[in-house]
């Protein structure tokens, strides 16, 4: 690619839509910005700094009341300065307890952003984490979960780092448009500034939406503590049960190498490490 063209695209940037939801403080239960969604917005802001000219659109579907407005404004307070693109956010207004998927799909299909960033799961309601998948299925876009960082965007292909368990990372290349979901592995969100949050505006568009009748039929209750699993010893004799309860945990007859040269010992260890596939 020619350098000028590359520069042009760099200037152009891409359209990013960040889906935000209203969080719930784990102790007080008050409305706040959702942890994962804030991380998603942080990621988008970091990308905008890398790729000037990107436009960030913050989108929320839900009702508008006093509590939720405070929570939503704290997302808007995350970027300061003129031209950062967070002076306003789009609010698809719908009554409480209605299905958010279809309005979101319609809005995304109409505005067609190149990248949609969302948290992995909501902190209120069902919180099943199905929404990003539902959007991907409806729109037919590829989806990548558990994102750690965005490395670069060029030629309509984004290179990402996906977080794996045990602190590992995987590099992926995804063709745009795409949906990416963010969880605890992404960089922590910055503080929200009060002033810009107050000054920001909402562009509200009411939507016709169906009530989520299935959710209404379910029984919701505060989470019970899960019973701790007991160590069950199935044995006929009291002696075996006592031995199992009183003795130290022992390996199931490990291999012990005595009187070996260091090389032989190292060989055996090397074989085990290879078998377990931990050597990279």
């Amino acid at each position, binding site marked *: 690619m020619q350098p000028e063209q590359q520069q042009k695209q760099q200037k152009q940037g891409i359209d990013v839509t960040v889906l935000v939801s209203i969080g719930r403080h*784990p102790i007080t239960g008050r409305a706040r910005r959702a942890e994962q969604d804030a991380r998603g917005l942080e990621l988008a802001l970091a990308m905008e700094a890398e790729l000037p000219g990107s436009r960030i659109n913050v989108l929320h579907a839900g009702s508008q009341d006093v509590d939720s407005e405070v929570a939503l404004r704290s997302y808007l307070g995350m970027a300061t300065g003129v031209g950062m693109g967070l002076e306003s956010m789009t609010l698809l207004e719908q009554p409480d307890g209605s299905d958010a998927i279809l309005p979101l799909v319609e809005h995304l299909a109409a505005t067609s952003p190149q990248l949609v960033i969302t948290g992995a799961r*909501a902190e209120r*309601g*069902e*919180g*099943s984490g*199905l929404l990003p*998948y539902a959007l991907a*299925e409806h729109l037919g876009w*590829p*989806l*990548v979960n558990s994102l750690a960082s965005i490395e670069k965007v060029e030629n309509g292909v984004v*290179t990402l*780092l996906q977080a*794996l*368990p*045990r*602190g*590992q*990372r*995987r*590099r*992926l*290349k*995804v063709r745009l448009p795409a949906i990416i979901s963010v969880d605890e592995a992404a960089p922590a969100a910055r503080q929200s500034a009060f002033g810009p949050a107050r000054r920001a505006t909402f562009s509200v568009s009411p939507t016709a939406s169906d009530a989520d009748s*299935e959710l209404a039929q*379910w*029984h*919701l*209750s*505060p*989470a019970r503590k*899960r019973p701790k699993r007991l160590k*069950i010893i199935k044995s*006929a*004799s*009291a*002696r*075996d049960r006592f031995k199992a309860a009183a003795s*130290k*945990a022992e*390996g199931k007859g*490990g*291999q*012990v*190498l*005595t009187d*070996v040269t*260091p090389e032989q*010992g*190292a060989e*055996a*260890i*090397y074989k*085990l*490490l290879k078998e*377990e596939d*931990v*050597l*990279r």
Partner: protein
Amino acid sequence: MSEIIRRDPRREWIARNRLHPDHASVLAEIGGVQVASEWLGPNGVVRKNPRAIGFIGPSGVKRIDRSGLQQGGQATATTTAARESRRTVTIDQPAFLVAVVPDLTGGRLSNHDKDLLGLARRVADADVEQPGAVVAILFGEHKGEGDGELKKQALGEAGIDRVVHLDDELYAGFAPEARLAVLSAVEREMTPRFWLLPDSPLGGADLGRRLALRLGERAATGVWQIEADDEAPLGWQCTARGAAGSLDIQRPLPRVALALAECAEPVDETRHAAEPLSLVDEIPTILSRIEDLGQVAVDPAGVALAEAEFILSGGNGVKQWDAFHHAAKVLGATEGASRVAVDDGFMARDRQVGATGTWVTARVYMAVGISGAIQHLQGIQRCDKVVAINLDPGCDIIKRADLAVIGDSTQILAALVAMVEQQRGGQRDAA
């Protein structure tokens, strides 16, 4: 032969007379190989020889085990009997199918997978007259203990009736679209009544949600309890965690469910057939818009000790710490330490493994010069494989270790480092 039991009064008399020169041999004759402690006396009364009871314990003291199991020498026989006490179950004509897609992390069924299979068994075996069959769809290599028959046995003991095994390069790494195509093919051909997946970040959570949307089902996620309920459409009610773990949602169990760890007890009484199945239709190849560029090398020192995969831990027996750090770097292991090494100032406090430090969950834990205090062993309870290098063959970590090498740790580590470097060098030359 006549039914009358012929008695030999003389032999019985010798058996009773401890001082008789033939006493031992006669007792052995009466009681088979071992010295008999009980036999039928001349008047039909059971006679006991209290001196024949018990066995000589490890410290030379006579021990008597009154639990009904005889003698120390037979202990191994009872454990093998316990292993063979599993009932073999074969389900030839299943009434319905329950599909399970285990994570198969590192090629083995994890504890989460086994719990999930336990849940699947509960659902499948609810009606004794018409049991269902559990179909497991395995992606990638299966590295169960042993091979051939034993491997199949490991799957069967987890409660699997049928296995669809896809060991192809196509499904390695992050390939949700290819895996989803396989699951869709299974759905078309077998139409299982339930799909159960682990709600784990190892891949089950992602794949399960994709599958649910593809099948047009509203999946239950974070399921941790199920109970039979006749009013529910599929006969089961489930309790699932919702709203970031702060809510319990009770709802009818849908066709697709993602279950948390410890959702049910793993199978431990039966052994199932684990018959291999293959898909009839060709699986359509999908042009993926996601390209996997492989895992990125992560600095092992930056990985939190609690979630590190491979830990090289040093203790009092390590004399050359520079060599130890070098070994950790070459092996790509996260460094850990025992309390002694930390107290002596060789390692930082946040690297301490054990009850007072970090409880680690490594897949491979290598303990160098650590004798294995109980606090340390507690800290490594959840590790899969433990390798110990130690000078003392009698210490506790040797009992815990899957592989123990007795010898000088400095030399063994140096030899291991040389081996790994040589292997890497060879690979680089080949490439």
